[in-house]
C-alpha cells in the first residue's frame, strides 16, 4: 500500500511547489548556516588547539620589574620548568600604529609562518599576519621602526597572540593600530639600545611546566626569589598569567565555543518551528482527506500505516533539505566562508576545514528526527479519530466552539475564524517569536556597538592616561592616581579590573570616593558585565599577592570604557602598604613629557575612540545578515500559515462569493482579523523576545571585555512594531491574490 501511496508525493510536491520550495529553502538555509557555523567553530577549535601543540604554546607567562638572573633561571629549570624570555619593545610607526618587537623564539610560542621565512640576518623582520593584511604589507616590503629600516622576510602568527590586544585589559582587537614582529636577537639589542620605544622594555617570561610543577608552585618559587633577594627589591613580579587566564590565548576557540553551542541549539529551535509549520500543512491535508482516511479505515487500513504515509513526505522533504543544507555547510561556501570572519579578526594560522562526524549526523538526522517527533505528536490525534467521524468530516466539539460571542456579525465571524485557526496562529506567533529573537540578537549587537562607541568617547574625559613602571618623585602635571590590576571572573572568563585610587575632587571621573578601605565605586561597564548593584560585595583577586580583597559597592560611576573600581587613594595606599605619596597612574588633559622608560603604557583618548569604532565596524555585516534572515523567516512563515488558513477556508470563501460577497468584504472576514493577532503577538513578542535575548546575550559575548548596555531607545521598539505590521500588510496583499482566485465553483468541486 505504501508503494502506491508514495506515488502521491511527487504530485503533492508539484501541486504545492511554491509552499514546499519556500519551506525547503528555509530548512536548507537553516542547516547551511548551522552546519557552516558549527563546522567553522569545530575547525577553529580543533585547528588552533593542534597549532598550539605544534607551536609549543606556553603554559603561562609572568613579568618582572627587572630580568631574572642566571641563578634564578637555573633554579627554575632545575624544578623542571622550561623558560624563555619574551621581552618586547613597543614602537610607534609612521602611520601611528604600534608595533611590538620581540626577538626570535626558540622554545615556546613558536611562530607559524604563513608566507616567506624567518629573519636570519640584520635588517630583516617577520610580521604578524593581521597587521600585514590591514596595512597591505607583503613579503619583501620595508617597514621603518624607529630609525631602522627592516625588510619583511615572512608573515606569520604566534599562538600567544591569537587575540591581538595590546594590553590584557583591552576589549577590542584593532590590527590597524597594533601588531607585532620578530627580529634577530642582535637587531633586538640594537633597537633596545636606540631607546626609541614608546615605553620601557617589558620583561615577560613564557614557561612550560612540563608536568613537573603546578602554576601555584611556580608562583610560590618566584615569590621566594623576591623575598630571599631583598637587595633586589625592584625585582618584583608584576604579572603572573597562566595561559587559561590570558585573553590573547585561545581567544578564537573561545569565541567559537559560544557560536558552536548557540548554533546547535538554534538549529534545533528553528527545525522545531519548521517541523511545526509542516505539521500544520499535514493536519490541513488530513482534514481535507478525512473522508478518504475514514473510508480506508473502514476497509481495514490501520492507523500506523496512514501515520507512516503522512510522515514520509515531511521526512523526505526535511531529510533532502538537510542533505543540501549540510552539503552547502560543508562546501567552500559554508564552514570555509564562515571561518573568514575568524581570520579577519584573530591572528590564527590558516586551517583546513575539519569535518566532524557528529555534525554530519546532526545535519542529516536532526531535520527528519525533529520532523518525525513534532509531526507525530501533532497528527497522532487527528488520525486517532473513529472512521465514521472522519467519513462524516465532523469537527470535534471543543470548549472553544461553545464560546458564546456577542457583537456584529463581522466581529463574531472573525473571532470564530481565529479560534478555529488557533493552531495556525500559534505557529505564526512561534515564527514571529523566533524571528524576533534573531532581530533582538542583531539589534543587541548593533546597540552594544552604538553604546560602546558613543559612551566610551563621552565618558573618557582625560586626553592621556599614563601608567608608570617607575613613577617620578613628583607628579609632572596631570592628576595622580594609584592603579592596581586585579582579576574578576564572570561566565568562565577572568577579566582584568583596575582598582583605581583617586582623589575625591579628581576632574576625570564623577566618582565621589569616600575614605575607607572597604568602599568602592564601580564603573558602569563593570556593573553591566558582572551584574553588580549598589550594596553588593565586590571580590577582586590580586595575583601579585595571591590575595582576595572584598569591598562594598557604594555607587556606580558612568564610565563605560573599562572595568574600574574606584576608591579613595589614601585608603588604597594604606590598604596595599604604599607610602602616603605613592602613585603610578597620571591622567592628563594634554600630552606630558614623560620619559618612555618609566612607563608601562600610555592610553590616549584617540585610542579609546578608535578601539570603540572597531566594534561597530566588525559587527556591521553580522547585524545586516541577521536582520535579513529574521525578516525572511518571518515573512515565509507568516505567508505559509496564512495561506493554509485561506486554503482551509476555500470552500466557505467560494460560498460567500455565491452569496454575492465582494473581495473587500471577504478580506474583511478572512484576512483582516489576522491583523489583531499579529499586532497582539508583536506587542507580546517584542518585549518577551527582548527580555529573553537580554538574558542570553551576556553568554554570547562572555569573552568580550566590555560593558553590556543593551538598552534600546523607545523609537527602536516602535520601529520593530511598525516593521512587523508592514510585513503583515505585504503578506496580506500577496494573499489577496490567492483569495481572488477562489471561484464560486470551488463549492461544487469540494462536494465532488
Amino acid at each position, binding site marked *: 500500500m505504501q508503494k502506491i501511496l508514495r506515488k502521491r508525493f511527487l504530485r503533492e510536491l508539484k501541486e504545492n511547489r511554491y509552499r514546499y520550495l519556500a519551506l525547503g529553502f528555509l530548512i536548507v538555509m537553516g542547516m547551511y548556516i548551522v552546519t557552516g557555523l558549527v563546522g567553522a567553530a569545530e575547525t577553529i577549535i580543533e585547528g588552533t588547539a593542534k597549532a598550539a601543540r605544534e607551536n609549543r604554546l606556553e603554559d603561562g607567562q609572568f613579568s618582572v620589574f627587572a630580568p631574572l638572573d642566571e641563578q634564578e633561571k637555573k633554579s627554575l629549570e632545575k624544578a623542571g620548568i622550561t623558560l624563555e624570555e619574551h621581552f618586547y619593545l613597543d614602537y610607534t610607526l609612521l602611520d601611528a600604529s604600534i608595533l611590538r618587537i620581540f626577538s626570535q623564539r626558540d622554545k615556546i610560542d613558536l611562530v607559524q609562518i604563513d608566507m616567506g621565512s624567518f629573519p636570519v640576518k640584520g635588517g630583516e623582520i617577520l610580521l604578524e599576519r593581521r597587521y600585514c593584511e590591514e596595512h597591505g604589507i607583503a613579503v619583501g616590503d620595508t617597514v621603518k621602526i624607529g630609525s631602522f629600516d627592516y625588510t619583511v622576510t615572512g608573515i606569520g602568527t604566534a599562538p600567544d597572540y591569537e587575540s591581538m590586544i595590546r594590553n590584557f585589559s583591552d576589549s577590542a582587537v584593532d590590527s590597524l593600530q597594533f601588531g607585532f614582529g620578530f627580529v634577530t636577537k642582535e637587531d633586538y639589542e640594537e633597537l633596545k639600545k636606540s631607546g626609541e620605544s614608546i615605553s620601557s622594555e617589558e620583561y615577560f617570561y613564557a614557561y612550560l611546566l612540563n608536568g613537573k610543577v603546578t602554576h601555584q608552585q611556580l608562583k610560590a618559587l618566584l615569590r621566594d626569589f623576591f623575598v630571599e633577594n631583598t637587595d633586589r627589591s625592584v625585582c618584583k613580579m608584576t604579572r603572573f598569567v597562566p595561559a587559561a587566564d590570558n585573553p590573547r590565548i585561545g581567544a578564537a576557540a573561545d569565541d567559537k565555543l559560544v557560536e558552536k553551542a548557540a548554533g546547535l541549539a538554534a538549529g534545533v529551535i528553528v527545525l522545531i518551528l519548521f517541523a511545526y509549520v509542516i505539521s500544520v500543512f499535514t493536519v490541513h491535508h488530513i482534514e481535507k482527506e478525512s473522508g478518504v482516511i475514514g473510508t480506508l479505515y*473502514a476497509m481495514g487500513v490501520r492507523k500506523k500505516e496512514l501515520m507512516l504515509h503522512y510522515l514520509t513526505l515531511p521526512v523526505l522533504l526535511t531529510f533532502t533539505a538537510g542533505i543540501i543544507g549540510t552539503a552547502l555547510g560543508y562546501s567552500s561556501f559554508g564552514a570555509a566562508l564562515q571561518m573568514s570572519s575568524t581570520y579577519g579578526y584573530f591572528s590564527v594560522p590558516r586551517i583546513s576545514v575539519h569535518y566532524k562526524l557528529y555534525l554530519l549526523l546532526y545535519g542529516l538526522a536532526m531535520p527528519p528526527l525533529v520532523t518525525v517527533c513534532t509531526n507525530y505528536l501533532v497528527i497522532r490525534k487527528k488520525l486517532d479519530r473513529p472512521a465514521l467521524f472522519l467519513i462524516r468530516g465532523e469537527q470535534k466539539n471543543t470548549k472553544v466552539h461553545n464560546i458564546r460571542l456577542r457583537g456584529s456579525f463581522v466581529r463574531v465571524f472573525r473571532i470564530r475564524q481565529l479560534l478555529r485557526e488557533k493552531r495556525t496562529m500559534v505557529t505564526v506567533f512561534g515564527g514571529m517569536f523566533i524571528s524576533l529573537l534573531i532581530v533582538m540578537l542583531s539589534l543587541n549587537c548593533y546597540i552594544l556597538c552604538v553604546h560602546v562607541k558613543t559612551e566610551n568617547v563621552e565618558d573618557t574625559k582625560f586626553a592621556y592616561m599614563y601608567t608608570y613602571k617607575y613613577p617620578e618623585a613628583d607628579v609632572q602635571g596631570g592628576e595622580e592616581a594609584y592603579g592596581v590590576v586585579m582579576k574578576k571572573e564572570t561566565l568562565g572568563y577572568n577579566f582584568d579590573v583596575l582598582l583605581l585610587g583617586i582623589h575625591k575632587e579628581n576632574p576625570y571621573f564623577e566618582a565621589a570616593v569616600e575614605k575607607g578601605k572597604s568602599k568602592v565605586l564601580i564603573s558602569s561597564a563593570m556593573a553591566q558585565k558582572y551584574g553588580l548593584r549598589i550594596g553588593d560585595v565586590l571580590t577582586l583577586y590580586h595575583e601579585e599577592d595571591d590575595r582576595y580583597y572584598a569591598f562594598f559597592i557604594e555607587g556606580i560611576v558612568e564610565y563605560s570604557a573599562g572595568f574600574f573600581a574606584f576608591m579613595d587613594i589614601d585608603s588604597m595606599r594604606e590598604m596595599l602598604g604604599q607610602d602616603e605619596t605613592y602613585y603610578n597612574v597620571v591622567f592628563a588633559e594634554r600630552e606630558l613629557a614623560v620619559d618612555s622608560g618609566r612607563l608601562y603604557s600610555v592610553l590616549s583618548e584617540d585610542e579609546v575612540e578608535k578601539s570603540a569604532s572597531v566594534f561597530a565596524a566588525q559587527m556591521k555585516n553580522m547585524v545586516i545578515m541577521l536582520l535579513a534572515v529574521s525578516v525572511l523567516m518571518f515573512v515565509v512563515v507568516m505567508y505559509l500559515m496564512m495561506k493554509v488558513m485561506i486554503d482551509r477556508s476555500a470552500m466557505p470563501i467560494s460560498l460567500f462569493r455565491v452569496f454575492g460577497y465582494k473581495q473587500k468584504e471577504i478580506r474583511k472576514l478572512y484576512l483582516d482579523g489576522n491583523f489583531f493577532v499579529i499586532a497582539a503577538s508583536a506587542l507580546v513578542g517584542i518585549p518577551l523576545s527582548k527580555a529573553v535575548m537580554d538574558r542570553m546575550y551576556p553568554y554570547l559575548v562572555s569573552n568580550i571585555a566590555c560593558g553590556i548596555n543593551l538598552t534600546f531607545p523607545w523609537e527602536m521598539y516602535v520601529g520593530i512594531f511598525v516593521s512587523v505590521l508592514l510585513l503583515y500588510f505585504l503578506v496580506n496583499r500577496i494573499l489577496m491574490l490567492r483569495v481572488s482566485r477562489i471561484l464560486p465553483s470551488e463549492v461544487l*468541486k469540494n462536494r465532488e
Partner: protein
Amino acid sequence: MYLVVKNLKKSYGEGGSFMEVLKGVDFSVEKGAMCVIQGTSGSGKSTLLNCIGGLEEADSGSIYVEDVEVCGLSREKLSDYRRANLGFVFQFYNLVPNLTVKENIQVCEYLTNKPLDLHELMDVLGLTEHQDKFPSQLSGGQQQRCAIARALVKNPKLLLCDEPTGALDSATSRDILVLLEKINAKYGTTMLIVTHNNSIRNMVNQVIFLKDGQVRKNYRNDARVPAAELEDL
C-alpha cells in the same frame, strides 16, 4: 447463515438528548445474498450498517459474521476483521484526489494476500479506459465505480453499501446497480445495501424494513428483477 444479528441495541446521547436508534434488531442473511435495508430517515439503517461494519459499537446484542462475534472486539481486532471480511461503499466516493483510478484501487489491493485480478475487475466495472485518470477527471458515476472497485479488489466476503446511488442520477444509478449485481453473481460477494430507493429492493434476494429502530419487515424476494430493468431509480 453468513450474517446473524441478534437483539442489537444502540443509543446516542444522555439525559434529555437520549435517543435509542436500534431497539433490538434481529435478522440473518445467507452467504452470497444481496440484501437491501430500507427505512425512513432516522430509522437506524445506517447505524445498523455501521455496527455490522464495526465502525460503531452496539450497546448490546450480537453480530456474527461466519460464526465470529463482532461485538466487543478491540479496535485492533475490528481493524483485522474489516481488513479480512469487509468492503465499504459510501454515498460520497472518498477517492484519494492525487492518485489515478488504478492507483486508488491498488491502495486496497495491498490489504489482502488474495486480491481479485485488478485488470479483470477494472474491465468488469468499465474502468479500464479511465485507469490513468484522476478522480477530478471522472464523472460521479465513474468515481463511484472506482470506489466500488476499491472496495471489491481485496475480495471481501461482505460488501456494505451505504446509499451507493444517493449522489447519482437515474441512469448512472442503474449502471452501478447492474455492476453490483454482476459482481454478486461473479464473485459470490454477500451484499448489504442501505438505500432510500424503493426500486432497488426488486433486484435483491432479501429485503429488510426498519422503522423506529426495529425490523418491521424481513422477507425473501423470489421474484428478482434484473437491475437493468429497474424503473423509477
